[in-house]
């Protein structure tokens, strides 16, 4: 419980700092903040309106608290370009990004687990060596290069998947999964290399445990030993890293969404930046950053639940 309390306190301060940073970003803009926020086609009335909305005449802490209060109640301002409320746009786009992230994690795990099992079974063998090399190479390819290659091979040359655009999941789930395969695969490529190596490393150390020798001595086939005895205890760091990667993948999603023209939150932020439309950028940043903090927090707790050593780390030290 002490652990949870401590984590909650730190969560509170991190959230405070993250929201404060997101808030102050807007103040970093050079020039008259209201003028810049109001956009290119800003008339005097719009300018006064923006000034009033931002409350620039008040002391900064007051501005922050008011902004935080509004954001918490779902009022994140209005886009200067198309007058759409930011919260509405985010509500539309967040599920799309979320689907993309989950999809890519599933692909990555689906490829990584069998390969990791095979590699670990004969550590040092040909398959293991080849997969190590390939994994190393995959990790050095930036996501936008992966995307270009995948589009070139699967969309342009083979024509199996579309290079841009998709059908909404609610309209046709199967078609949606088909359309989003290339973007999800792009994100998954680096992940699968990481997961495969993690699983392999953990499996190899598990396979050196006494109970594995015992199981083998009893005459259980090595396949069964691997799947039934060694696999589960070896997935610990895999689960953690997969969880932590959700946050990391958000960064990758920015680029992938732009390339494949997916209306997710990453593209929303990038479009805002390119169009000098700053209120949506601020809204997007704060939502993504808070989500990231919360996901990491949840994983920390989950980790502690799975591994009692962490829960009791204080007692040991």
């Amino acid at each position, binding site marked *: 419980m002490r652990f949870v309390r*401590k984590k909650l306190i*730190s969560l509170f*301060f*991190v959230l405070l*700092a*993250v929201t404060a*940073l997101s808030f102050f*970003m*807007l103040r*970093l*803009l*050079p020039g008259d903040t209201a003028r810049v926020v109001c956009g290119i086609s800003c008339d005097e009335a719009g300018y006064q309106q923006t000034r009033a909305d931002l409350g620039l005449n008040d002391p900064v802490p007051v501005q922050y608290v008011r902004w935080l209060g509004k954001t918490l109640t779902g009022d994140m301002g209005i886009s200067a370009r198309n007058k759409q409320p930011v919260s509405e746009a985010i509500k539309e786009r967040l599920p799309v990004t979320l689907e993309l992230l989950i999809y890519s994690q599933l692909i990555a795990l689906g490829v990584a687990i069998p390969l990791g099992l095979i590699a670990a079974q004969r550590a*040092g063998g040909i398959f293991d060596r080849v997969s*190590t090399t390939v*994994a*190393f*190479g995959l*990790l*050095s*390819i*930036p*996501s*936008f290069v992966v995307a*270009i290659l995948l*589009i070139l091979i699967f969309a*342009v040359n083979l024509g199996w998947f579309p290079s841009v655009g998709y059908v909404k999941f609610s309209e046709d789930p199967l078609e949606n999964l088909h359309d989003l395969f290339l973007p999800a695969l792009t*994100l998954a*490529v*680096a*992940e699968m290399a*990481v997961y495969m190596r*993690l699983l392999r*490393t953990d499996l*190899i*150390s598990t396979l050196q445990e006494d109970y594995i020798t015992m199981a083998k001595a009893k005459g259980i086939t090595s396949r069964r030993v691997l799947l039934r005895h060694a696999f589960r205890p070896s997935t610990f760091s895999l689960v953690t*890293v997969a969880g*932590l*990667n959700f*946050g*990391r*993948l*958000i*960064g*990758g*999603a*920015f*680029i992938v969404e*732009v390339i494949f023209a997916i209306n997710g939150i990453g593209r929303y*932020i*990038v479009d805002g*930046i*390119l169009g000098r439309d*700053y209120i949506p*950028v601020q809204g997007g940043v704060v939502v*993504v*950053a808070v989500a*990231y*903090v919360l996901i*990491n927090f949840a994983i920390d707790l989950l980790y*502690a639940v799975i591994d009692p050593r962490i829960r009791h780390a204080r007692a040991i030290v």
Partner: protein
Amino acid sequence: MPAPSSEFPAQNQAPGSDYFPEADLLESGSMATELVGPGGIADGQVRELEALHILDPDQVGSGAIKKRLGLGFWIASGWVAFITLLAILAPVLPLESPSKVSSCIKYPILSTCTKAGVDTFHVLGTDSLGRDTLSRIIWGARVSLSVGLIAIVFGLIVGGIIGLIAGFYKGRLEGLLMGSMDVLLAFPALLLALAIITFTNNRSILVISLAIGIVSIAPIARLVRASTLMFGEREFVLASRTLGASNSRIISREIFPNVVLPVLSFAIIGVAVAIVAEGGLAFLGLSVAPPTPTWGGMINEGRNVLETDPQIALIPSAVLFLTVLMLNFAGDRVREYFDVKEGGL
């Protein structure tokens, strides 16, 4: 020189530190996970690079085996040196201007363009505006390499000082410093870099480098702090203190030399991550403004003509990939080299 431990330091919690030990257990993986790259791809590689080699069956218990950097390392370094040299020499090389537009557009590799009786030979062809690809690659290398280097040097200096202070003085100061590092880590890396560039509204090489460098501070600070905590408990520090050495002398003469090696090998990989990060920003059109060529920008421009002239995107992609791969490989070898040496002592 005193023997450093072969363990990666983030997992070693020295007693007496007030900064949550649980957090360190939890985050032993995230140091690497979060040495970020916009682009999202390179982010986890450090963790992965660790995983590639620890517990390798033929390495377990083989600390006594003398390791070499190996041929691969020299090939990798050679490539990086070659690119660096080209980048430095770009102004004096017999190249066309990287922004010179000509009527010979989308020329393939090894083609000669004849215009008004003058033959221009394009080794790597031209892009869709007729600009010489080789020239743009070499000029683009200047951006990529400077950003990679400046970002990591900045991260090393700031992160290194924070880590040394936090790890040496411990107590409240450590809590405060590492707490603020947690806040930095709380932002997804690309988002933070993007936000800095957007809201300062400045796209010079320096600002881009600093934006990426800021993202690298927190992981470096963590690594340095963890090593400092570990070395702070060692006998040679105690001996130095007994002899009357001041804190600043202990930090600079006893701890710093021990901490610097693991951090430097980490920094080589960090340069690769920063280059990918810059590439990602350039790809989004948010790095140095055109017409300055950047690798990421070239790939992005080539994306529009992927169907007809894939080489325009593929050539810069290949150069970027090779450079990142070679840096990763070299960094990995250096790290392994020192680790093994450490293990053998």
